[in-house]
Structure formats: structure tokens, C-alpha cells
């Protein structure tokens, strides 16, 4: 197992990329440990009778992921890239919504996609068939994407300046909530064929999202889904959530979603330009550096 990033056999792979990392050298020196300020010395003790010492760590569990995410975010901002993290239960319609979005906006915007699934490249293939470049991350046994995986995918995808980058996370409403990828916003997709109380059951995810796309609204006449309650639960969990009811199948209300996207992309571009115009900016920096701290 790679002791720097935890990758190894059976671990995440980015399709088409050799599994190579560059790491800072670990300190290979053998340390002689000290006790309470005594001079350093090497000694052997009988097992079980070793005096032990306390070591203060105080390190956040997610600190490493947060550091990679911050790097991703900085690179996006510098290049005017509007990055979104799409999350949902499996089958809510994330990929279908992406295909709709690409078909509608692909001529006017550079849309690039990072796909995350445990296995297969099926989603990436669907995206490419719709006309957008896509890279697939297979997490193997993993249940969520993390910022380090996304950084590797970005090395292969190399989105152009001012692109809209959609990261379709593994279908899972629990684990992805905790793992910042460096995105500008999380977009949570809920479909009307799921329970209307999901925002209460998975509050962390709905709280961290900026937008909720309520998909498959074309099915509302055929099912018992308490729409008012669902909206109430969602607003209770996150009063600032932007909620858009859509149908990826029929195209209903997709323009509202596209309008939100275009607004956000415009803000990202403006930020990228203002950064580029700073006298000290390195506006040609690559999206992801191959050496990670």
C-alpha cells in the first residue's frame, strides 16, 4: 500500500493512466528515541515492559483530504473553472441530467466530466457519447471520491480555462458528504421515486449542498410522493437550498437548472480573469501538479 496516499492493489484507478505517484521522500533515518529530555540513545527493552511516552498529535482526520481539496479549488479559481460535485443515491438520475446538460450547453460551453463509480466505465462512455470529454475513476471498494483521486483525474482530463467541470460522485448519500473535492458547490439530486423524507434522513448531505435537483417530476401523476412535505423537509434541513424540480427524461424545467449553471459559470470566469490580471499571478499554472505534499 502506498503509505503517502493509501493507494495500492485493488485501490482506486483512473482509466488509461499508469498508477504512478511522485512522493516526497520519507525520512529513512532510524531514530534513536529519547525519554524526557535525556540524551538520545538506542536501547532494547523486554517486550511489555517498555516505558512508553505520550505524543501530542491534534490532527484533524480529514486534514489531508482538505489540503488536496484546497489545491484543487485554487487551481479551479485561477483558471475560471466552475466545478460542481454531483451527489445522490444510486439511480436518481445524475448521469441522465449530465447528458441533458451537455446536449443543451455543449455548443456554447466547454463541459468536462469526472465520473466516479466502484466499477465500469459505463457512465464515462455515456458522457462521451453525448459529446463531452470524460475521465472515469473506479474506486474499487471505495464508496466516495476524494480530492486526491480528483486531482489525478484532472491530470488526465486537463480541462481548458473557463470550463464547467462536473464531478459525478459515487451514488451514495452518506460518505461523499464529508469529502471536499475542491468544488464550488455540491448539487444533490433526489428523485421522486425515492422517499420524500430523505432530506431528514441524510441531513449532512442536504445541508452541504447548494442546489437540490428533484428529478423525474414527469412521474408525479403516477406515484404517491408528498411534494410539499419533501420541500418542507429540504428547507428545514437547509434554509438556503435552491430547489429545482426537473425531468431529465422529458426536459421539463431543465432551462431553470441551466440558468443557475450559467450564472455560476459566469462568476467563475470573472474570478479567473480578475486573478489573471493581478500583477503577481501565475495565470498559466497547470490545473493539477503531479507532486502533492
Amino acid at each position, binding site marked *: 500500500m502506498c*503509505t503517502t496516499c*493509501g493507494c495500492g492493489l485493488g485501490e482506486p484507478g483512473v482509466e488509461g493512466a499508469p498508477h504512478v505517484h511522485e512522493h516526497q521522500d*520519507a*525520512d529513512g533515518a*532510524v*531514530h*534513536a*528515541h529519547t525519554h524526557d529530555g535525556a540524551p538520545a540513545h538506542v536501547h532494547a*527493552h523486554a517486550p511489555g515492559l*517498555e*516505558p*512508553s*511516552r*505520550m*505524543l*501530542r*498529535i*491534534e*490532527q*484533524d*482526520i*480529514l486534514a*489531508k*483530504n482538505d489540503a488536496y481539496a484546497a489545491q484543487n479549488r485554487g487551481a479551479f479559481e485561477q483558471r475560471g473553472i466552475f466545478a460542481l460535485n454531483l451527489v445522490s443515491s444510486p439511480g436518481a438520475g445524475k448521469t441522465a441530467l449530465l447528458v441533458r446538460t451537455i446536449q443543451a450547453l455543449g455548443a456554447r460551453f466547454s463541459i468536462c466530466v469526472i465520473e466516479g463509480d466502484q466499477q465500469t466505465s459505463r457512465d464515462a462512455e455515456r458522457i462521451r457519447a453525448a459529446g463531452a470529454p470524460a475521465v472515469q475513476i473506479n474506486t474499487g471498494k*471505495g*464508496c*466516495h471520491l476524494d480530492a486526491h483521486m480528483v486531482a489525478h483525474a484532472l491530470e488526465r482530463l486537463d480541462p481548458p480555462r473557463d470550463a464547467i467541470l462536473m464531478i459525478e460522485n459515487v451514488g451514495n448519500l*452518506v*460518505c461523499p*458528504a*464529508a469529502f471536499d473535492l475542491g468544488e464550488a458547490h455540491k448539487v444533490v439530486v433526489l428523485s421522486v421515486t425515492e422517499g420524500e423524507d430523505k432530506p*431528514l434522513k441524510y*441531513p*449532512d448531505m442536504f*445541508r452541504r449542498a447548494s442546489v437540490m435537483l428533484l428529478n423525474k417530476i414527469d412521474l408525479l401523476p403516477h406515484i404517491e410522493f408528498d411534494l410539499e412535505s419533501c420541500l418542507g423537509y429540504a428547507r*428545514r*434541513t437547509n*434554509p438556503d437550498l435552491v430547489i429545482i424540480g426537473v425531468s431529465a427524461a422529458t426536459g421539463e424545467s431543465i432551462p431553470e437548472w441551466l440558468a443557475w449553471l450559467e450564472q455560476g459559470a459566469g462568476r467563475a470566469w470573472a474570478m479567473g480573469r480578475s486573478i489573471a490580471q493581478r500583477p503577481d499571478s501565475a495565470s498559466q499554472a497547470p490545473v493539477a501538479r503531479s507532486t502533492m505534499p
Partner: protein
Amino acid sequence: MHEMTLAESVLQIIEDAARREGLRHVRAVWLEIGQLSSVEPEAMRFCFDAVARDSVAEGARLEIVTTAGAAWCNACSAPVALVELGAPCPRCGGYRLRPTEGTGMRVMELEAE
């Protein structure tokens, strides 16, 4: 949250410290888990024991300290105690709450030789 991934992160932090400080075996680990972190301490224990096998922390005792949750209530314009995400404000009963404390998980200390 997914305790297995978090347990692996805990182990990574421990192994980094072990390399840095020349530790041969870690006997105990103190974790601080926030009330609002969505981490289940018993699941954490189970997963940590599993990932620590064959590592410098094999068999290490896991001490879990729970830190209290708190939030800022936008309606009350005041800090309030919060014991779980999704609970209403204890003062006004509303939901305009922004979690401020007890949201994370940290490795605090190691006992090692």
C-alpha cells in the same frame, strides 16, 4: 460517515507520526469525536481494530472522547448547544442553525514506545 475510510485516515496519521518519531509500537490512541460529526464511535472502534492489524498500531487501545456540539442560531442570533444534526434550536425551536463545534474528528494523542 464512512468509518472504515476514517479509520484508514487515523492509521495514516499514526504511521506518519511513527515514522517521524521512530515509534516501534503504539499502545493507545486518543480520538476526539464531535457530537455533530456523524461518526458512530462503536463503528469506529470496529473499523480501527480491523485496519490496525499488522501495523504499528496493532492491538492499540482506542480511547474516544466525545466533544459537545454547538451551533449558531440565525433566528436567535446566539450560540446554542446542539446534540445532533437535524435537531431544532433548544431556545426557539427553529432550524436556522449553523453547526460551529463538535463537527470534526481528531487524533489527539498517542501512547507509544
